[in-house]
């Protein structure tokens, strides 16, 4: 299973690795029970099957055994006791952790069907691709996630970093991750949330500390440089500002400050489009603007009925949003 990028046992973050240790333990215990009980079943069937030489008389009728009944009640009770104590300990070690002072805060807001990510301490707003610093086990800098929903219930799940926690409207949930190795970790929404539940993908970029600082710096920069000398870009910006795009999308420095759709200020710093439905490139951007439903049927973004020229200009503008 080395080629499975979302394997829950390939944990690289404290909650996930504590979980996978517990999981392996539970698997071992249940596996042992399976072999004993299933073995007994097989032995019973093979040993006591009716032979061809059977005399047709009924076997001895045994009604039961209080000893056996008690024994096979007590043994499961003992197993349950061990499992309960162990599980309670692991629950505490994940859910009972208080937020350390140096944790990074991220507010994750679920939308149909994309993720809004806000870093209140850093003044960053982005979407679908979460960037966090690596957390040294000796001096942990975990990331603290506050989970909210703008519409229906969603669930935040990046298997290698942590188990899932739901994002539920009118409710505030929390979870934390402490990734120990840099890399890209994939996940997706795990609570059925409507038509495009399947394409509500999620990526987590874990950076070494200094790389994370650089990323945060770049995201924090105020207005994107709009090279106004390029006519197409100016025209594209006008298309953006004079259409309904601005009702839903924000681009810092323009009149667009909608929050219904993802913030586009640093659009080009992301690798994917429409919550991972397609890789981000000029071609996919064009296709997406022309007909969002062609890429993600049911998506809430309407086809804006722009002319091909307008689409070109808009894409030119969007490509400047680094």
């Amino acid at each position, binding site marked *: 299973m080395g080629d499975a990028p979302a394997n829950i046992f390939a944990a690289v973050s404290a909650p996930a690795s504590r979980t996978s240790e517990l999981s392996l333990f539970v698997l071992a215990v249940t596996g042992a029970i399976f072999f004993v009980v299933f073995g007994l079943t097989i032995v019973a069937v093979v040993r006591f099957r009716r032979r061809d030489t059977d005399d047709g008389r009924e076997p001895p009728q*045994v009604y039961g055994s209080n000893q056996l009944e008690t024994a096979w009640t007590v043994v499961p009770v003992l197993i349950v006791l061990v499992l309960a104590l162990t599980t309670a300990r692991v629950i505490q070690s994940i859910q009972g952790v208080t937020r350390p002072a140096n944790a990074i805060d991220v507010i994750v807001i679920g939308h149909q069907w994309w993720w809004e990510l806000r870093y209140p301490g850093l003044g960053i707003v982005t979407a679908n691709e979460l960037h966090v610093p690596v957390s040294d086990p000796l001096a942990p800098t975990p990331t603290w996630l506050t989970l909210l929903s703008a519409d229906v219930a969603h669930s935040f799940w990046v298997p290698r970093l942590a188990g899932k926690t739901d994002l539920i409207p009118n409710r505030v949930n929390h979870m934390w991750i402490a990734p120990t190795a840099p890399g890209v970790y994939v996940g997706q929404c795990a609570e059925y949330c409507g038509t495009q539940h399947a394409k509500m993908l999620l990526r987590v970029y874990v950076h070494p500390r200094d790389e994370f600082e650089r990323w945060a710096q770049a995201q924090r920069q105020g207005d994107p440089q709009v090279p106004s000398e390029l006519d197409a870009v100016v025209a594209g910006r006008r298309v953006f500002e004079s259409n309904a795009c601005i009702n839903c999308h924000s681009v810092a420095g323009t009149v667009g400050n909608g929050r219904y759709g993802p913030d586009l200020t640093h659009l080009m710093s992301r690798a994917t489009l429409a919550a991972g439905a397609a890789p981000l490139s000029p071609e996919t951007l064009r296709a997406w603007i022309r007909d969002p439903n062609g890429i993600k049927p049911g998506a809430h973004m309407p086809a804006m009925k722009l002319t091909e020229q307008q689409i070109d200009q808009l894409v030119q503008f969007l490509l400047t949003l680094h």
Partner: protein
Amino acid sequence: MEATERTEATGGPEEIEVPAPTAWPLTMAFGATLLGAGLVTAGEVSLLGAVLLVAGAVGWFRVVLPVERSVRIPIEPEGQPRIEPRPPTTHPRIAEREHRARLPVEIFPVSAGIKGGIAGGVVMALTAAIYGVISHHGVWYPINILVAGFYRPELRATTEELSAFDGWALLFGTLIHGVTSLLVGTLYGMLLPMFSRRPVLAGGLVAPLAWSALLYPTIGMINPVLARRIDWGWFLVSQIGFGLAAGVVVSRSLRIHTRQSEPFAERIGLETGRRP
């Protein structure tokens, strides 16, 4: 049908009364469905549903009252099939009259297991306390490390903290130790009769060694604090102490004959020796 069945006189010898078929329940169910379906289609559908619902209810009422309507069905001429005797049961070797037994026939009384569990638990606690004293950590140390893994504040506790008296740890630890000891004791009481040749060896040595072997690789998961601080030699000694104490107490109790295979009348001493 022999003596175990008797005739019942309802409906005379040739006919039997059964409830009469009726369509009113169907009407009522259909009405209820339409009543609901109106919400997703048109109001008239609901209206029709309501009418059918009421009609069904009234019709049903009139079927049941004043007297339930029924029809008489003639009994089929073949009557009820006869049931013939089969080849007799194989009787096992235990004893002629035990072939309906709940096995095993001889058991230790339940109290033996509980007593064994208590004795074992006490011996184990004493061994642990002695270990605490000898290792210079104090009598409270063993019980503290037993529970430390299970609640968080103790996870990073120092040796000093773990040597001090802690009321909650004592309570929680005693609970875990007590419950487990009683359960294992009960198990001894139930299972040792089946290893009746050498109960003390089986219960005193084999069983503790077996569960210690099971715990050895898993203890780190179950209770990491204990795993870090455990002294396996002493651990084994205390487990064998438990096993020996419980095994001896259990096997010293008198075995009782369960008498469960005997008829109730015999068990309570009303009659003896009545056999079919």
